[in-house]
């Protein structure tokens, strides 16, 4: 993975700690963007590259855990690495359950932080890839006719053309033509790949 095409956000109220994290990230070629408070982070623009968030638990105003909740409520999916001066177990459990990548106690081992960042960025990378794949699938799905859309769940359910024709009240030959269009428009090479696409698009179907 090319690290320079990533961005690490740091939300930490202590200026020393903030600078120290920036220094550490720079030494491994990572670019950090620093924020002193949760509000500052929320109002900033985020670039369209793989990112992760290093978040201090104790912040003035909105706390780190509050920010985590806020982000998830507004569907911002960004991997979070929590750092805290004195983390207790209930607090870390809460953070991890809400999807945090890692929960580190200051002073932390640099390798632990870098590993967590690596994992978080990889996770974000995968998510972003997945997101763009789904976006592509959606646009393919949008290009289908209503008949083809009607056909999709029936095809992935494993029904034969004959069964489908009987179900929607048309001829077997017509189903065959529609099915060919469907497979081509969705760029599905096999029934298995169409099935995976239907799953990704969250199209309900029943297997026989």
């Amino acid at each position, binding site marked *: 993975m090319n690290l320079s095409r990533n961005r690490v956000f740091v939300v930490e109220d202590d200026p*020393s700690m903030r600078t*120290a994290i920036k*220094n550490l990230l720079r*030494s491994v070629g990572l670019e950090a963007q620093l924020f002193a408070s949760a509000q500052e982070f929320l109002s900033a623009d985020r670039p369209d590259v793989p990112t992760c968030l290093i978040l201090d638990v*104790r912040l003035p105003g909105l706390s780190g855990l509050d920010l985590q909740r806020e982000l998830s409520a507004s569907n911002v999916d960004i991997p979070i690495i929590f750092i805290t*001066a*004195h983390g207790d177990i209930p607090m870390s459990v809460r953070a991890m359950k809400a999807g945090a990548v890692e929960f580190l106690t*200051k*002073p932390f081992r640099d390798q632990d932080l870098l590993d967590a960042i690596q994992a978080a960025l990889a996770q974000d990378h995968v998510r972003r890839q997945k997101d763009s794949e789904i976006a592509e699938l959606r646009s393919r799905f949008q290009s289908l006719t209503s008949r083809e859309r009607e056909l999709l769940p029936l095809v992935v359910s494993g029904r034969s053309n004959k069964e489908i024709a009987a179900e929607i009240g048309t001829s077997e030959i017509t189903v065959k033509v529609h099915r060919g269009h469907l497979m081509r428009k969705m760029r599905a090479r096999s029934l298995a790949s169409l099935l995976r696409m239907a799953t990704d698009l969250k199209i309900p179907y029943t297997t026989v």
Partner: protein
Amino acid sequence: MRIPQSATFRYGISLLFVGVALGLSLLVHSFLPDGFLIFFLSAVMLAGWFGRMGAGLFAVVVSTVTVDYLFIPPYRAFVIELDELPYFLTFLLSAVVTSWLGSARRYAEEKQTAHLDELFEQTPEAVILVDLHDRVLRVNKEFTHIFGYGIDESVKRPSTELIVPAQFKGEALNARERLATGQVVNVETVRRRKDGSLINVSEVAFPVIANGKVIAYYLIFRDITKSKLALEQLQKAQAELAHLSRITTMGELASSIAHEINQPIGAIVTNGNAALRWLGQQPSHVEGAEEALECIVRDANRAAQVIGRIRSLLRKNTSPMVSLDINEIIREVLLLTASEANRRQVAVKSEIAAPIPAILGDRVQLQQVMLNLIMNSLDSMSITTDRPRELRIKSSNKSDCVLVQVEDSGNGLDAQHSNSIFDPFFTTKKDGIGMGLTISRSIVEAHGGRLWAEQRTPHGAILNFTIPISPRTV
């Protein structure tokens, strides 16, 4: 001093006076027939003076009989002619009055002397009367108790020789010069007992003035060794209590202080790692490492400062009174309490007047006052949820003092408690010991200032204190 006189003496002396009057009268009778009057009237007066009322009247009776027998016609007979009766009665009346005057005057004088003597003797302070040459004329009972000298050992000896330690001779002579000009001298000093031991005394000395001239000096001493010792012990106990209270407060702050130290340490570790990574690169990147190392130095200094502040607050002995900037003290304590305020989600605002005149004070004690007031304010907002939690610290410059105000948006002063908040052991907190405000007030008052509380509108309380401006800067 009163010398008790026997009846024999009093009546004898009375007879003696009458006898002398008789002799003198007989002597002058041939050429001064009425001369006896002056002698006998003098005799009854003297008898009244020296022998008191009884002996005076006895002299009147004896004189009357003698005068009637020898000097009022018919002579040598106890009979009085009718013509001579007014003359005789006038004599009798004069004699009675004269005798009464003598004895009454004597009685009044004795009464007054007795009162003064009692006062002198019974005064619970050591009193010395010295003449202009410092010779002791008289000492009282308490003097003998305090200084250990008997009356005989003291009288006629120079008082400085008796009780003034060598190193205080100059001061004593100085005081004597001021006395000679008619001034009253009031000092706290040290004097010496007969056994050589030293005592702390409060001395009042004043001259005795008669007809516009200084004729003697009174020196009055009170032994203040015990009260001085008690005061020192009280001060020591108060200092210990203040120290204990500081430790308690620091205990409450422990987790915040740990955070305050952990933060720079975390930064140091991270920067150290960054520096190692910069140097470990091929080729090593010295500039990046230098930058990280500079951060390490700065953060280490910051951690050391936090530790230094804590250590000075936990020190047992108080620091000396020095010229201080109250704003600096406010800033230092705010740094210590910042993360505690943060933890409790309290917004801290400071409105500091700059420049502010210097004050004379004990840094640690004033830090303790600030710490107590801030912690109290934070505590008072612990159950505040329906409005922002705000702590506001203001310093301002009044004409002769600086004013510091600590405001919070908590529950304010309970009307029923507002008078008791400065009482020892008064607390509304579950685990408070109730000494914070008591100690703070005594510290502020020891600095010559005032500490008071008032209600804030619409919510909360304002704790105010003043410290006088250091005289050097006025």
